[in-house]
């Protein structure tokens, strides 16, 4: 079967310890996820919860005030080389994580200093299918289970615990060896042209094994893992992920019936009846995540870092976004999105959804934005909004002009359209915005990490690559924490850090909701409407409903699909 890749966002990292610069749902869920399975599998269809049937773990128990975690693995999973998937393979993964972050924190996208794997005091494998983790602190059990342990993934110790392709296995359970092994595997992962032939990547526990990869397009193909023993044994022998340069090119292929499963861009919504006539089913639902524009709080160009550091500025910018118009516009979402004001949307439902998700604290109002900025000394001078007071707060000197740039993802077009509409409203107040487009992969690999990478700091004021799909437990630890690995713009706020800390360590289950309310109020980025993830698939393609619903969460499960005769 053929699956369309998202244009400009093809997978580009195969080794399941994924650096921040490569981490995307397209790489992790829709590429690595075909071959290597997590200990805890989420989502369950479109619902943000653990799908135990699809997980390698059959249960998890906590002891010693949640400081001891006991993971019980299923005993029916095997590697494609015939060896069983054991707790030792999970231990191997943890050692590689430790090595990766020791070499550089950016080597693991989901890393936050002090948290996993830094917070492990010891680990052990009392038997082949039990892993015991001892932690240094007590954590919120939801955070522990649904976020921290969500990254765990067994890796084939017997095939990968080495430092050269044809070398012998070496013990991985000391940091020096683990670093050598990590460097070797990460080095192999940088050789994209070898993905289809490298014997390392042929040892999998998932339903599919990679058979080809084209580094010039990121197109790839997978064949059925004939020795797959887990949940949902594949019926389809070959899965081809087809790369496209634009959503329009992809849609044309759908109309010609050359793609079995592919995304439907908002610009093609009017063509849905046409698609259905061509034998496709079309469905969509919102993702459990958020779309946002990232602010660069370290940007020295035109003193933008200081400007955006002011809460009143971020509030004014939020007032300048006309979400209802963007959602209603026939050229934009055409109704296929819902308003979103913070990191968690109102749908799909989750026990962690905060009250603030349903209330817009900064509704569209150019007048309110003008008043907020004017009160703090900003006036239009020669057409450009300029600080006319001795200080407009936060050390912004008199004469500072409010001008910056937005680098936005070139595909899908809706990203640029939203930013254009927003920039247009900003222009009404004299805020000068320069818009530049780049591909998704270029943006996340080039402009992330302003904290440690000084070169990045002054290149951009805002970036818009889309957004994040959250963990089941939606703390924004990695994104808005001062030390978060995906804190691309260097946002830092002690109150948010404390709220995130409470979400992680407090036993109070409403702590995460308080955190999300605070983030909604403080606007660390511009929260944008939550679109429906819409996909089309041939009506001859069938499978459990939840396996199709999972696409709205950017998870593909072709092993559960089959073609009707």
């Amino acid at each position, binding site marked *: 079967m053929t699956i369309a890749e998202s244009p400009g966002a093809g997978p580009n990292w195969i080794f399941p310890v994924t650096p921040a610069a490569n981490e995307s749902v397209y790489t992790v869920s829709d590429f690595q996820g075909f071959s290597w399975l997590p200990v805890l599998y989420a989502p369950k269809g479109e619902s943000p919860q653990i799908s135990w049937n699809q997980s390698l773990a059959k249960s998890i128990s906590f002891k010693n005030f949640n400081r001891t975690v006991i993971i019980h693995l299923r005993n029916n999973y095997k590697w494609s080389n015939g060896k069983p998937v054991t707790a030792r393979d999970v231990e191997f993964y943890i050692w590689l994580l430790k090595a990766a972050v020791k070499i550089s924190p950016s080597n693991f996208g989901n890393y936050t200093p002090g948290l996993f794997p830094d917070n492990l005091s010891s680990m052990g494998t009392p038997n082949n299918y039990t892993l015991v983790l001892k932690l240094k602190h007590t954590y919120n059990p939801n955070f522990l289970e649904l976020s921290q342990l969500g990254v765990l993934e067994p890796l084939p110790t017997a095939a990968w615990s080495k430092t050269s392709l044809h070398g012998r296995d070496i013990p991985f359970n000391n940091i020096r060896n683990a670093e050598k092994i990590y460097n070797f595997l990460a080095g192999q992962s940088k050789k994209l042209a070898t993905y289809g032939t490298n014997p390392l990547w042929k040892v999998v526990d998932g339903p599919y094994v990679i058979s080809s990869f084209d580094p010039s397009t990121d197109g790839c193909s997978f064949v059925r893992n004939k020795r797959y023993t887990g949940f949902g044994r594949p019926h389809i022998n070959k899965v081809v992920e087809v790369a496209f340069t634009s*959503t*329009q090119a992809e849609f044309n292929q759908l109309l010609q019936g050359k793609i079995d499963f592919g995304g439907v861009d908002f*610009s093609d919504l*009017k*063509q849905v009846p*046409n698609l259905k006539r061509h034998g496709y089913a079309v469905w969509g639902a919102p993702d459990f995540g958020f779309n946002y524009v990232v602010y660069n709080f370290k940007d020295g160009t035109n003193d933008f870092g200081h400007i955006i550091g002011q809460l009143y500025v971020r509030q004014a910018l939020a007032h300048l976004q*006309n979400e209802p*118009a*963007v959602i*209603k*516009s*026939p*050229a*934009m979402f055409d109704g296929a999105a819902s308003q979103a004001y913070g990191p968690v949307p109102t749908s799909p439902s989750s026990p962690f959804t905060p009250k603030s998700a349903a209330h817009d604290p900064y509704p569209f109002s150019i007048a309110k934005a003008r008043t907020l900025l004017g009160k703090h000394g900003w006036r239009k001078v020669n057409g450009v909004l300029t600080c006319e007071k001795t200080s407009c707060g936060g050390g912004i000197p008199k004469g500072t002009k409010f001008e910056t740039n937005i680098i936005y993802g*070139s595909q899908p*077009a809706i990203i640029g*359209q939203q930013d*254009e*509409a927003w*920039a*247009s*409203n900003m*222009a*009404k107040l004299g805020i000068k915005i*320069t*818009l*530049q*487009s*780049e591909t998704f992969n270029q943006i996340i690999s080039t402009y992330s990490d302003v904290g440690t990478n000084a070169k990045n700091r002054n290149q951009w004021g805002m970036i818009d690559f889309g957004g994040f799909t959250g963990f089941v437990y939606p703390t924004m630890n990695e994104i808005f924490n001062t030390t978060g690995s995906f804190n691309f713009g260097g946002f830092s706020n002690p109150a948010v850090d404390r709220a995130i800390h409470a979400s992680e360590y407090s036993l109070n289950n409403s702590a995460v909701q308080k955190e999300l309310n605070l983030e909604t109020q403080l606007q660390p980025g511009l929260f944008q409407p939550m679109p429906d993830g819409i996909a089309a698939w041939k009506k001859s393609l069938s499978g459990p409903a939840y396996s199709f619903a999972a696409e709205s969460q950017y998870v593909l499960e072709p092993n559960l699909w089959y073609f009707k005769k």
Partner: protein
Amino acid sequence: MTINIGEIGEELSTLELAETPEGGQVQGPRSGWRLALATFVGNKLAVVGAGIVIFFILFSFVGPHIYVTNQTYTNPIAAFQAPSAKHLLGTDPAGFDELGRIMKGGQAALEIGFLSALIATVIGTLVGSVAGLVGGVVDGLLMRLVDVMLSIPLLFVILIVSARFHGTSVVNLSLIIGVFSWLVSARLVRGEVLSLRERDFVFASQTMGATRRHLIFKHLIPNALGVVIVNITFQVADAINLLAILGFLGFGLQYPAVDWGDMLSQALTWLQDGYWWTVYPVGICLVLVVMAFNFIGDALRDTVDVRLRRR
């Protein structure tokens, strides 16, 4: 017998009027420029081309003062409105008036077309003159440089440079296009200079101690101007085309500026939804302008080339 001289004169003049000499009608002396103008005006396609260019200059630069529209602030709700009395060519995906947008895009096309052609011509003329006059190693090096650059696809180079330097303004894009479009000019001018440098007036000037700079600026370039002018028109057409391609591929001007390629690219996204007014008018404008400059270029070539000029 007496001969009346007046009668003989009458007979001769009758003879002259009756038959046209083999070499054509003898006329009074005409200047080269008047002759060139007559040849140009005699070319119907050239006149049509000039008319179209003048129309688009007026349309793009004077039009917005007559047909006043908002081209700065988007209005998502007003997207894709069909042509009406309020919006003669409907609205685009951002809610901008399409006709006003075409005018604004036309400004960018003409500005970038002329500016980049000027940049390319200046560089090409200087390089060609120096190569042709100095000759030897300098000529060899410069022409090999031209060969190498001609062997690299222009679009490929410009795409890379545009991506690197974010060609988001008229000046940036003109520089990017101009700096990589001088190669043909250089070759043409060099060829002309190779011929001119053997002429007596150049020898005379050299004998009187003229420097190379003097020769280039006072004798060679002025005498090669015909070739240069012809080439400029083609350069303008090529630059407008290139801008459209860059815009189509997303490397053109960015909001609030706009170029025709960018408009076409956006419009194609919705082509199948029936919003024809966002595709065909701008496409027709692009074709007309490029075609017009090519007509003018062809006619100018005929005008400048004495072998093709009618007497």
